Each structure stands twice: as structure tokens, then as C-alpha cells.
């Protein structure tokens, strides 16, 4: 009988004994150190990510909050990301919100069961974490990542895989090829402006400052093309992106040209 009681006690306690030996905390978590003890895998992935390497560091509590019971479901929501990534009206969030993914998310999120893991069977539309922490990988720089599009080379294959959860491979491959081409076109505009600027090293300080200001706008507009392509927002690819770059290019050209013409017009 005593043996049976002991066995029953063991069975009852087994969930707590299983794993690291500690039961999940029921009270509020105070520091990231407490999380790391039980979640070494996620910690390791996170260490490799931009969230760990860049300042300010975004640790566990930044996204998961301090209540263990809702730590996972809380961080699956887009609002866990938006506050640091430019706010609701910023280009990062707005390019997503105006995409069809973002629209569906906005309309349907209250009906989703957020306690479920981020898999295509559980969610009709992907939020930030679905793609950027694909299959729960806490290295946000591993798969779909924003800086992949900054480099002057095609996006890596690991990014292409994510979209195939829901979309046909031919469709998404063409989308990626198109996005690569779209970005390269944007860079061509930017390089054309740069070359024009390099050709007039003798510009005065005031002219240089005005042109630099236009270059800053160009940088933002190129970023919009990236966001538009990545988040599939036609409005960011186009109106906030390509035609805006056209305007920057012709204005930079105009300023350089005006300088040259004025120089010509001066009596020798």
C-alpha cells in the first residue's frame, strides 16, 4: 500500500519533475536570467539575433512580458513588436497593416486562438512573429529578415521557404524574383544620383547640404520599397517608393545642373 501511494505521488509530481526539475513560475518573472534556466534553446537562438547584438538589447521580458502564463500568446501578437519598430503609423507597421496579411490580421485576430503555436494550420494570416520568428526560431535574423534586402544581392533561400507554408512555390518564387528586381531598380536610381554628385566635388557647402538632404529622403524611399516588397504593400512599393525615388533623382540632378549652368553663365 505504501508503495502504491509513493507511485501515485510520483505520477502526480511527474510534470514538474520532467524537464529541468523546476515547475513553471506562477508569479511574475523579474529578470531574463530566470527565463534562461528553463529555455536554453531559445536563449541560444536569441543570442545570435539582432535583438541581442544591437543596442538597445531586446531581452525576453521585452516581448514576453513578466507573466509566465501568457508569455507565449502575448509575444505572438504584432503589438509585441510595433512599439519598438516605429509605432503604428511608422513605415514598418503601416506597410504591413496595409498589406492583405495585415488587413486579415486586423479583422480576424480576435477570433484566433493565440495559445496555439505559430503554424499555418492555426492562423489564417501571418503576423510579425509568424514570418520573422518562423517556427519559433528566436533568431530574428535567421530567416525572413529586413537586412537581407539591404545587401546588394538576391534574398537568401531561407527566406523563400517561409511563404510556402501557405502559397504555391512558383507564385512565391516569382514574387521574390520580382522583389529583387524592384529593389535593384531602386538602387539604380540611388547610384545614378550618387554618380552625379561624385562628378561635382567642387560644390559649395550650402549646395552640398541641400543635396545631402535630398539623399536622406532617397534613403527613406528606398527603405519604403524594401518594406513594400517584404510586407507586400503595393502602396509602399509604389507611391512611397519608386515614384518618390524618381522625384529625388530628378531634384538632385536639377540642383547639380543648376550649379553647372550658373557657373557657365558667369562672365569669364
Amino acid at each position, binding site marked *: 500500500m505504501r508503495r502504491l501511494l509513493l507511485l501515485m505521488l510520483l505520477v502526480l509530481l511527474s510534470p514538474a519533475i520532467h524537464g529541468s526539475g523546476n515547475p513553471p513560475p506562477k508569479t511574475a518573472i523579474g529578470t531574463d536570467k530566470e527565463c534562461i534556466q528553463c529555455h536554453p534553446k531559445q536563449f541560444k537562438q536569441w543570442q545570435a539575433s539582432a535583438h541581442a547584438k544591437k543596442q538597445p538589447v531586446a531581452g525576453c521580458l521585452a516581448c514576453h512580458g513578466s507573466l509566465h502564463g501568457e508569455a507565449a500568446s502575448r509575444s505572438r501578437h504584432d503589438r509585441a513588436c510595433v512599439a519598438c519598430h516605429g509605432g503604428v503609423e511608422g513605415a514598418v507597421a503601416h506597410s504591413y497593416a496595409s498589406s492583405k496579411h495585415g488587413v486579415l490580421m486586423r479583422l480576424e485576430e480576435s477570433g484566433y486562438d493565440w495559445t496555439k503555436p505559430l503554424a499555418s494550420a492555426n492562423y489564417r494570416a501571418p503576423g510579425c512573429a509568424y514570418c520573422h520568428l518562423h517556427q519559433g526560431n528566436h533568431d530574428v535574423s535567421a530567416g525572413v529578415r529586413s537586412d537581407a534586402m539591404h545587401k546588394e544581392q538576391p534574398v537568401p533561400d531561407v527566406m523563400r521557404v517561409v511563404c510556402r507554408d501557405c502559397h504555391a512555390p512558383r507564385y512565391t518564387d516569382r514574387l521574390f524574383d520580382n522583389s529583387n528586381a524592384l529593389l535593384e531598380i531602386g538602387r539604380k536610381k540611388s547610384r545614378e544620383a550618387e554618380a552625379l554628385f561624385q562628378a561635382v566635388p567642387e560644390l559649395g557647402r550650402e549646395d552640398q547640404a541641400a543635396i545631402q538632404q535630398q539623399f536622406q529622403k532617397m534613403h527613406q524611399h528606398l527603405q519604403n520599397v524594401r518594406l513594400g516588397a517584404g510586407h507586400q504593400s503595393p502602396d509602399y512599393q509604389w507611391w512611397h517608393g*519608386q515614384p518618390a525615388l524618381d522625384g529625388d533623382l530628378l531634384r538632385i540632378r536639377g540642383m547639380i545642373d543648376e550649379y553647372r549652368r550658373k557657373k557657365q553663365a558667369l562672365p569669364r
Partner: protein
Amino acid sequence: MSKPPRYFWIPLILSLILVPAGFWYVGWSKSGEGAGLYSRQWVPDAMFAYWNPKDFYKPVETITGKFEGEECVACHTAVTPGIVKDWQASHHSRAEKKVYCSNCHGNDHQALHMPTPDICATCHATQHDQFEDEKRFGFPSHALAMERALDAKHFADKPKAEVTACLQCHSVASKCDSCHTRHRFSAAEARRPEACITCHSGPPHPDDETYFHSKHGQLYLAQGDQWDWSKPLRKGNYPAPTCAYCHMQDGKHQVADKSIWKFGIQKVNPLSSGNEIKRKQWIKLCSDCHEPEMAAKNLTALDQERKRAWDKLFQAESVLKELRSDKLFYPSARQRPPYPGDAPDKLWPREAIGFFEGQSSAFYNVSPIERDYFEMWYFSNLGAYKGAAHGDASFVAKGHQAMDQSLKSINKQAEALRNLGKVQPTNIWLNGEYTDYNREHN
């Protein structure tokens, strides 16, 4: 009866030759690898298949055989579970006579097609007829969106990977899932304002921003999640209107018939006999919730805002036109790359100023002063219009402030051009990495 005079025959014979020749020429120019009027001057990007399936979609030929009904569902539950799940949640799967994959995509797996509006029309004929009827009212409209995009000069001219961005929205003419996303095709989804914002957002059409800033939009944001979206868009069903409530009243798939100001891109007479009918329709619609007098006053306020806007725009236009007639534009149309395939543009290079000369294509490869006018007209003016029409005072103020600024800047630049006079051109407008690429890749 006397013999017809000799000069009767000359125009008759000429027209007998020229009219068919004209038809033949248009037909010929539309028969190229691309689509639309300039179809011979460009080749499509691979993505065009999905945005304009009628012209460009080709099926994947990996699987052979003919499949129908549950056969498709059986395989695709494993291959594309999300799509099947969507379909299962849709009316298509719950209707008495189920609408299966094969009903819309065909049953030959080697020859599957993307469903175009005419396929949806098999069952939804009323909605499709209403949608087609938009063409009577011209552009802007959903039904003409693809056609007008393909025929735009800048579309033909720019690299096709770049203008794929345009087709994503202009595809509203080519497929119904722009508003009723696949594969749920929900009417309730399309009733909500978010269904429209993927395209109706940003500088030339900030419908997104202005609606959500308005009291209507604020009410929606505060309470919309609790409303019963299964109800039709009819008086009494919703406490505040959404995009579709006003623009697709009672679910009528026709967004162009009540349009008075045509997106704000051209000056119209709002009191013409045709527009008087539209005004009555608007007042009746607003009277679902408001007093008719209030609706009439709001329409008049919109007219006044438009008058103020067009006064400014015409001032800017006349400054530009004077510069053009004095040949002071720099770079002039001769000093910059022409649209490559456009014969008249090569023969008679001329700067396009204003709506009727096609300035909507002239936002690149133009001089800074022309770009300023483009932005004044296409961004600030249209933003102010949307603000006035949707009840967002902040966009009206912002738009008019920006127009005043542009007008000042245009006047200043015009003065500078006059002072500089006819100076030797520098030739830096004709070449560059993107400019060259744009000449070569269409």
C-alpha cells in the same frame, strides 16, 4: 438625281481607306507580347500572370489527369491545408450545391486557370453586371483599372519589374479576390473598410488615412468589432458608414456611378445636369442618418474646397504654360529621353502640362518645376479632396498648405529660369544608370 460632285469622292475614298487602316493599326499594336495599346513595346514580368491572369497566366504542368469535386479536396488537404480550410469556412463549401475547386479552376490539371471575374459571374451575374456597368462612367472605376494601367505611357515605358507594383492594385479589374480574399471570398470582409486600404492609401488617394480620421472612421474604430457584419449595407444596419456603405450602397458592385469629382484629378462642373442627379443620390444616401439639408451643405462645402484648389492649380498651370511658350523649360522635352515607343513624342517633343495632356505620366524624366506641379496636383490636391469628401479637416488644411508652398516654389523657380534665360544645356539629363536601363528594358 444629279451626279454627286467630284469632291464628294475624295473624302469618301480616303475614309474608306483610313478608317479600316486605323482599326487595323490599333489591332496590330495590341497584338504584341505585352498587352494594351503599347503591347508591342514591352514583355511582361513573370508576376503579371497573377495580376492579369486573362492575358498572362499559364498553368503549372507538373501533374496530369482530370480531377473534380472531392478529388481535389482530398489531395489539397495535404498539399495546401490553409486553402482547403479557408474554402471549408466559405459559403462555397456550405452551399446546397457546393462550389468546388474545379468549378472555378477547371478540371484538367495541365490546363488549370486563375478565376477571372467572368468565371465568378457564372453564379454572381448580378454583381458582375453591376461591376461591368462601371465602364459607362469611365475612369476612375474598378472595371477599367487594368486597361487604363496598361495603356498608360509610363507603364509602357518603365521596366516591367518596377510597374508590377501598379498592377497589384489595378488587378481589381481582373480578379474578385482583391476585396473578397481567397479562398474564403467573404462578403462580410469586403464590407469592412480595411478591405479597401491595401490600394486606397498613400499620397494620391489617402482614403485610408482620411476615413479613419473622420468621425465615421473613429466610430468604426471604437465600435466596429461589435457590429454584425453579416448584415447587408442598408439603412439601420450599421451605426456608422464604411467605404462600401456609401460607395457600394446596398452591396451594389458599382463604385463609379455616383462619382461627381472623379477622384479630384480634373476640374468638373459639379452642377451639370448629370451631376445634379448624382447630388440627389448622395443627399438621399446621407439622409439614411443625417438631415438632407446638412448633406446638401456638406456637398456645397466640398464644391467650395474644390474651387479653391483648382484656382491654385490653374495658376500653377499657367505659369508652366507660359514658360513652355517662351521655350524656357529646362531641360526641355528635347533635352531629355522621350518615351521610347511613342512616335508622336519623338517627332514632336512637348512637355505635358495638366490632366488633358497626360501629365499623370510625367513624374520622372522631367524638370524639377514640372515635378513640383505634378506633386501639387497629384498628391496635395488629391489629399485635400479626399479630406474634404471624407470629413477630415486636417487633410484639407495640410493639402492646401502644401499647394500654397508648391505655388510659391513654382513661381520662384519660374523667375529663376527667366533670369537664367537660354543657357547652353549641360546634357546631364540624358544618361545615367537607371535612365539608360529604363531606355533598354521595357
